[in-house]
C-alpha cells in the first residue's frame, strides 16, 4: 500500500513539474476565478450589511416652513397622532422645533461659518421625525411621504427610500454581473485543467500503454492524473482564498479608518467569520473544479 501511495505522488509531481507552463496557467485561471467568485459573495455580504444598517435607522423627515403657526403645526401633530394610533404605518414621531433644528444644523455644518450664518431662527425650518412601522418597505415610506406632503406649510419631505432602492438595485446589478463573470472563469479553469491533464496524459502515452499491457488497473493509471488536477484546483483555491482574505482585510481597514462610524458606508464590510467561510468555500470549490476537470479528462483517455 505504501509503495502505491509513494508511486502516485511521485508520478503526480513529476507530471506537474514537466508541464510547468500549462500547470501555472491552470493554477492562475483557477486562482482568478475562485478569487472573483469569493469577491462576489463578499460584496453581496457587504451590500446586505449596509442595507440592514441603513434600514435600521430609517426616519422620515418632514420639514415645516419656519413661519408656520402653532395651529398649522397642530394639524401635523393631529395627523401623525392619528396615524400612530392606526399603527399600520407610523410607529412613532417627535418634533424638533426651530431652536432644535438650528442646533442640528449648526452641529452638521460646524466647520462652515457661511452655512452657519444661513441657518438662523428666521430661516431654518423645524421638522418632524417619523419612524415607520416597516423600516425596509420603500412603498410604505412613499405612501406616508405623499400623505404628509399634501399638508399645508410642508417645506420638504425627506425619505431614505431612494437610497434603499438604489442600493438594492445596485446589489442586484453588481451581483448578477460578477456572478456571470466568475461562472465563466470557473468554466475556463475547468477547461484549462482538463487540457493540462490531457496534455500530461498525452506526454505519457508510452507509459500508459505499458501500464495497460502489464495489467495496471485503470484506477491506478488514472489516480496520479486525477490527483494532479485536484492539486491544481486546490492550489488555485488556496491562493484565491488567501488573496480574498487579504483584500477583505485591506478593505475593512480602509472603511473603518477612512470613514467615520456614522457615515453612510461604514457597514459596507463582511464581518465575523463570514470572510473565512467564503475563503474556505473557495478552496473546496477549487478542489471540486480540479476534480471535475481531471476526472473527465482521465476518464475519456482510458478505454481498455
Amino acid at each position, binding site marked *: 500500500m505504501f*509503495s502505491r501511495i509513494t508511486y502516485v505522488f511521485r508520478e503526480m509531481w513529476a507530471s506537474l513539474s514537466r508541464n510547468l507552463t500549462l500547470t501555472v496557467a491552470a493554477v492562475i485561471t483557477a486562482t482568478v476565478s475562485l478569487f472573483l467568485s469569493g469577491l462576489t459573495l463578499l460584496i453581496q455580504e457587504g451590500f446586505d450589511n449596509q442595507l440592514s444598517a441603513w434600514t435600521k435607522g430609517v426616519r422620515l423627515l418632514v420639514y415645516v416652513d419656519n413661519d408656520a403657526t402653532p395651529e398649522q403645526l397642530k394639524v401635523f401633530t393631529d395627523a401623525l397622532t392619528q396615524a400612530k394610533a392606526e399603527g399600520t404605518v407610523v410607529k412613532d414621531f417627535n418634533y424638533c422645533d426651530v431652536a432644535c433644528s438650528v442646533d442640528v444644523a449648526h452641529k452638521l455644518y460646524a466647520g462652515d461659518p457661511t452655512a452657519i450664518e444661513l441657518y438662523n431662527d428666521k430661516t431654518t425650518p423645524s421638522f418632524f421625525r417619523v419612524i415607520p412601522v416597516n423600516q425596509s418597505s420603500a412603498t410604505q415610506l412613499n405612501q406616508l411621504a405623499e400623505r404628509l406632503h399634501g399638508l399645508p406649510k410642508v417645506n420638504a419631505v425627506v425619505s431614505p427610500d431612494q437610497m434603499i432602492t438604489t442600493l438594492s438595485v445596485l446589489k442586484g446589478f453588481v451581483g448578477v454581473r460578477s456572478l456571470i463573470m466568475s461562472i465563466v472563469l470557473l468554466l475556463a479553469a475547468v477547461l484549462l485543467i482538463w487540457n493540462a491533464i490531457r496534455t500530461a496524459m498525452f506526454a505519457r502515452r*508510452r*507509459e500508459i500503454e*505499458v501500464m495497460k499491457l*502489464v*495489467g*495496471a488497473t485503470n484506477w*491506478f493509471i488514472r489516480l496520479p492524473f486525477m490527483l494532479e488536477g485536484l492539486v491544481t484546483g486546490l492550489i488555485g483555491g488556496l491562493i484565491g482564498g488567501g488573496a480574498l482574505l487579504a483584500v477583505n482585510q485591506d478593505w475593512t481597514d480602509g472603511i473603518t479608518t477612512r470613514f467615520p462610524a456614522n457615515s453612510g458606508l461604514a457597514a459596507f464590510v463582511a464581518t465575523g467569520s463570514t470572510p473565512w467561510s467564503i475563503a474556505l468555500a473557495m478552496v473546496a470549490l477549487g478542489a471540486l473544479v480540479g476534480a471535475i476537470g481531471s476526472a473527465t479528462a482521465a476518464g475519456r483517455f482510458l478505454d481498455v
Partner: protein
Amino acid sequence: MIRIENVTKTYSTDVTALRDASFEVNKAEFVFLVGPSGSGKSTLLRLMSRQERPEKGGVWVAGRNIVEMPNNKIPELRRKIGNIFQDYKLLLNKTVFENVAFALEVIGKPKQVIRQQVPQVLEIVGLEDKADRFPHQLSGGEQQRVSIARAFVNRPLILLADEPTGNLDPGTGEGIMRLLDRINTTGTTVVMATHDQRIVNQMRKRVIQLDRGVIVRDQHRGVYD
C-alpha cells in the same frame, strides 16, 4: 492454455483480418505464427490479450473466455501474459532496472519484492551489469532483452512476442531466440509471430501459417515454408 475457436475479426467492412480461425495451444508449448505481411498474425496476438475483440468466436486464455470478460477483469488477465514487441516499447527516461521495476510497481508489488525479483530476471536475460544504463546506451539486442525481462519479471503463464527479432541482425536474433527458448523450458507458453525464416527452420517448433486471415497450415516440428 490458449484456445481460439472459430474466430472472425473484421476491422472495417472491407478488411477481414481473421476468418474462422481455430487452434489450441497447450501449456509450455512454443508456437510460431508465420505468414505474409497483413495475414493477421499481430491481430491474433492482440486478441489473446484482449487488446482487440473478435466479432465472432471465442478466445479462451487460462481456462476463461476473455471475449465476454468485463473490463475490470482485464488487468488480472494481462498480469498472466507478457508482451514483447519489435520496437521494444521501453521507457526512454528510465534505466534498465527502472523499466523492469515499472512493470511490478504499477501492479502494486511492494518494494522488497521489486528489489528481489528485478536483479533475478536481469540475470536471466544477461543484463545484470547494465542495470543502471538508459535504453539509448544499449544495443538493439540488449534493449530487446530488457523488454523480455520486463515481460517475464512477473512470471507470466504466457509470453506473446510480435516479431521480437524483426529489428535485429541474425546473430543477435539467435541470442534472443535462445533466451525465449530457455524461458519456454521453465513452463511458460510462448506464441511468437515472425518473418524470420532461419530462426523458424532452426528451432523446429510448432508452426501455424496464416494467409489473408485464414489458417492454412498447423504443423508440429515445422519449418517456415
